[in-house]
């Protein structure tokens, strides 16, 4: 008969721990709705939303480590062994032990894992996915390789100075960092410098970069950061146009740009190699991200490894996307996501997009002051990345002002420059924050 009671105790209804998990399941359903019905970056938000629901199934523990599952379900003797493994002299509930986990040394974690294993507890499915895909930092890098293999640097090579637009738009990242530490300094939020850097990267408008940075600097915020990054990327057609129009005159929006020169295959092959050498000389901290990106691009352009390039663009990136999305979803567990910080992240994220957009446009106007060959400032907003959505927005707003003016290709230059720019920013921030002891 006790099995019957056990079965009831196991059932979800008996285990809902307050309204948190129900809220998170509703949020997961909301993400699925946006992805499927509103086409919000569905390739990522379908797996993330589904993973978020799975992570909040009460009693299933899919998003928890073996140690966390042992703490949640274990009897007093498991708790006592766990406390001993973590050198805790005194504890009252399992929450006290859980709070000690983030500060445990490698030896203590190892001992805690052995306690969990001896008691028969295993890590949840999503926790395993997270460890392999994101904890190892491999999945975002593999996605970045695939993105590299899909990127055409032709428009950028035809007009290299549009790279400055991609640089300027990264100001959105750093202004947001400043905003986050400001909120901390004012006591409104409690972000560390590492948190601030991870939040800022939302302004990079580049999913894998944002996931990579937050997995290294602020893993507990990863769920909110990834959701904000992908949602705002989907919202680019709504966020950017008002800012672009406010900062430009009708005349500026009508500027016509001359057609781009054709770019030879050799230039396209040389470009990723040049980026790689520049990384080697000046920015080793960006080597993983930009290295994989350039590797993907070189595979595409060199023309002798099409098998590998095709696989990087299809089977490999698709498989990685499935597990990356589910893994991000594991960070939507209620106790990690339902936190005032999440609201701060969502607010700061949209500010980051806005400032990045504005600075791209302003930079284009500044460049026009110093250059004969005028550029249409509308392509500046594409510098935030959000490839290829932001470039399409530039094109659309441009067509509204001048129906003969096709800006799409011109906007692709700053668009892909923005990917490089935010990878550079990511490298700098990781390196600096780690040396700050963050």
């Amino acid at each position, binding site marked *: 008969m006790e099995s019957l009671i056990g079965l009831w105790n196991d059932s979800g209804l008996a285990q809902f721990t307050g309204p948190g998990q129900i809220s998170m399941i509703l949020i997961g359903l909301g993400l699925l709705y946006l992805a499927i019905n509103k086409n919000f970056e569905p390739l990522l938000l379908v797996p993330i939303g589904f993973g978020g629901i799975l992570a909040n199934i009460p009693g299933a523990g899919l998003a928890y480590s073996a140690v966390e599952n042992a703490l949640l379900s274990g009897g007093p003797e498991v708790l006592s062994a766990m406390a001993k493994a973590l050198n805790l002299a005194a504890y009252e509930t399992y929450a006290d032990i859980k709070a000690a986990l983030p500060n445990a040394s490698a030896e203590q974690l190892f001992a805690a894992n052995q306690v969990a294993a001896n008691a028969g507890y295993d890590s949840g499915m999503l926790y395993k996915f997270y460890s392999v895909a994101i904890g190892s930092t491999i999945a975002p890098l593999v996605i970045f390789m695939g993105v590299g293999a*899909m990127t*055409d640097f032709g428009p950028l090579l035809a007009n290299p100075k549009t790279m400055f637009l991609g640089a300027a738009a990264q100001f959105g990242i750093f202004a947001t960092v400043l905003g986050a530490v400001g909120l901390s300094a004012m006591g409104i939020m409690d972000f560390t410098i590492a948190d601030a850097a991870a939040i800022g990267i939302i302004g990079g408008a580049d999913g894998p970069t944002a996931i990579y940075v937050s997995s290294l600097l602020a893993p507990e915020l990863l769920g909110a950061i990834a959701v904000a990054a992908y949602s705002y990327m989907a919202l680019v057609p709504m966020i950017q146009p008002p800012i672009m129009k406010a900062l430009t005159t009708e005349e500026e929006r009508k500027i016509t740009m001359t057609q781009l020169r054709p770019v030879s295959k050799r230039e396209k092959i040389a470009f990723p190699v040049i980026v790689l050498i*520049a990384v080697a000389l000046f920015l080793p901290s960006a080597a993983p991200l930009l290295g994989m990106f350039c590797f993907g691009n070189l595979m595409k352009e060199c023309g002798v490894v099409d098998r590998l390039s095709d696989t990087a663009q*299809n089977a490999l990136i698709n498989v990685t996307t499935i597990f990356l999305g589910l893994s991000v979803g594991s960070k939507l567990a209620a106790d990690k996501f339902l936190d005032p910080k999440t609201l701060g992240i969502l607010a700061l994220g949209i500010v980051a997009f806005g400032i990045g957009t504005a600075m791209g446009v302003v930079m284009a106007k500044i460049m026009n002051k110093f250059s004969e060959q005028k550029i249409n400032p509308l392509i500046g907003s594409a510098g935030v990345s959000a490839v290829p959505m932001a470039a399409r927005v530039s094109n659309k707003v441009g067509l509204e002002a001048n129906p003969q003016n096709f800006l799409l290709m011109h906007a692709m230059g700053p668009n892909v420059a923005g990917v490089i720019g935010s990878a550079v920013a990511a490298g700098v921030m990781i390196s600096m924050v780690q040396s700050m002891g963050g």
Partner: protein
Amino acid sequence: MQQDIMSQGVDLMLFGMGTVFVFLTVLVIATTIMSSFVQRFLPEAPAPEPTAAPAAAAPTGVTDPKLLAIIKAAVDQHRAKHK
């Protein structure tokens, strides 16, 4: 500590933004040099497709042009024989 985190944030902004600009400036210069070098010393027939979006489109309709061309040729040949 509050002063501290603010100054860390300012440091991050100054050095971060600086690095981004320096790095992309280096790339602009290196790319420009490389392009003129390639155009001068290693000329080649220019790539036929100057424009392509970095998106992974599903390969839909790929066979259509070929298909239509083949059908057109078949029908043309057929018509020629009828005349």
